[in-house]
């Protein structure tokens, strides 16, 4: 983790914000614009979907207008083959080698399929992609993805869209400790304090979609997340006090008057 709140480096590229925005669930291009403004995000995900001649252009145009880089994802893919083809389509369409790799096991949990994920990551790294895999909160798998050549790892806090927060903070801390590529907490975040915790646990960044886009006031929530990520990052660097089982007076005992 570098000592600079203003950004972190993925595959040699400096991202000016540690908050990555997921655009899923956004209600309109105007709301997306407002969210991008108040989040300060410099990178935002998009999905690859069939062209709808009636509605095309919206998301990409807004991202470009705000100078935000596009991170295509492979959401909806269940096999390595589907994910690899989706990444190649994204590279062709958006002229980026970056891909947020998602290969899910089933529609109910949307949890990553570790076997297909690793297979897809190997293929895409071999093809020269900058691969950011959405992965389980498994320190061993995270290391395997790093060894495969992934540029970052993106462990989940909880299932996508669940808002349950970070269910296994110990594992997230272990992943952050043991990986030398940036660790970006992805999925499960419910509110700003979850993002702060992710940063306190040692993550280099946080990716948030639903918790912002489906909140009552998305632009306001985006601002809250921006502050939360910064607070967590600063607290991590400042160093938290150890936990104790008993109290420790913060006022001095010396000079206590005899009353």
């Amino acid at each position: 983790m570098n000592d600079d709140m203003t950004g972190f480096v993925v595959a040699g590229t400096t991202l000016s914000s540690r908050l990555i925005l997921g655009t899923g669930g956004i209600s309109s291009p105007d709301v997306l614009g407002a969210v991008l403004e108040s989040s300060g995000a410099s990178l935002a995900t998009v999905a690859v979907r069939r062209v709808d001649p009636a509605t095309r252009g919206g998301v990409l145009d807004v991202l470009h207008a705000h100078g935000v880089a596009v991170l295509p994802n492979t959401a909806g893919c269940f096999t390595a083959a589907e994910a690899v083809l989706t990444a190649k389509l994204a590279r062709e369409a958006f002229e980026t080698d970056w891909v947020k790799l998602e290969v899910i096991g089933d529609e109910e949990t949307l949890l990553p399929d570790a076997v297909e994920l690793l297979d897809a990551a190997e293929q895409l790294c071999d093809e020269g992609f900058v691969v950011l895999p959405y992965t389980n909160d498994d320190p061993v798998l995270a290391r395997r993805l790093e060894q495969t050549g992934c540029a970052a790892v993106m462990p989940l806090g909880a299932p996508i869209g669940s808002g349950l927060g970070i269910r296994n903070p110990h594992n997230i801390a272990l992943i952050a400790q043991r990986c030398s590529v940036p660790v970006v907490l992805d999925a499960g975040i419910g509110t700003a304090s979850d993002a702060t915790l992710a940063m306190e646990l040692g993550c280099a960044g946080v990716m948030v979609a639903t918790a912002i886009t489906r909140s009552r006031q998305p632009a306001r929530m985006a601002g809250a997340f921006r502050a939360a990520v910064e607070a967590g990052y600063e607290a991590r660097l400042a160093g938290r006090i150890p936990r104790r089982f008993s109290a420790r007076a913060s006022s001095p005992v010396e000079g206590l008057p005899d009353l």
Partner: protein
Amino acid sequence: MRDSRPPDTEQGARIVVNGEPHPVAPGATVADLVSSWCGSPTGIAVARNREVVPRSEWATTRLSPRDVVEIVTAAAGG
């Protein structure tokens, strides 16, 4: 793998574009299809029979009857 390709009919050759049957004129290329399907080619990619057709090959890649084509772009997601 499910065969979603349409049978050729007496009305002429057909392909599948984004899941829907679509007529194809003899000699039509991927570039022709993209321009009729969505006008501007910005932010678009094309897969033909589950292989990416690079943008540089759109104009020279002729569509064959029963091709399955996906034309994709960005949508809010992730």
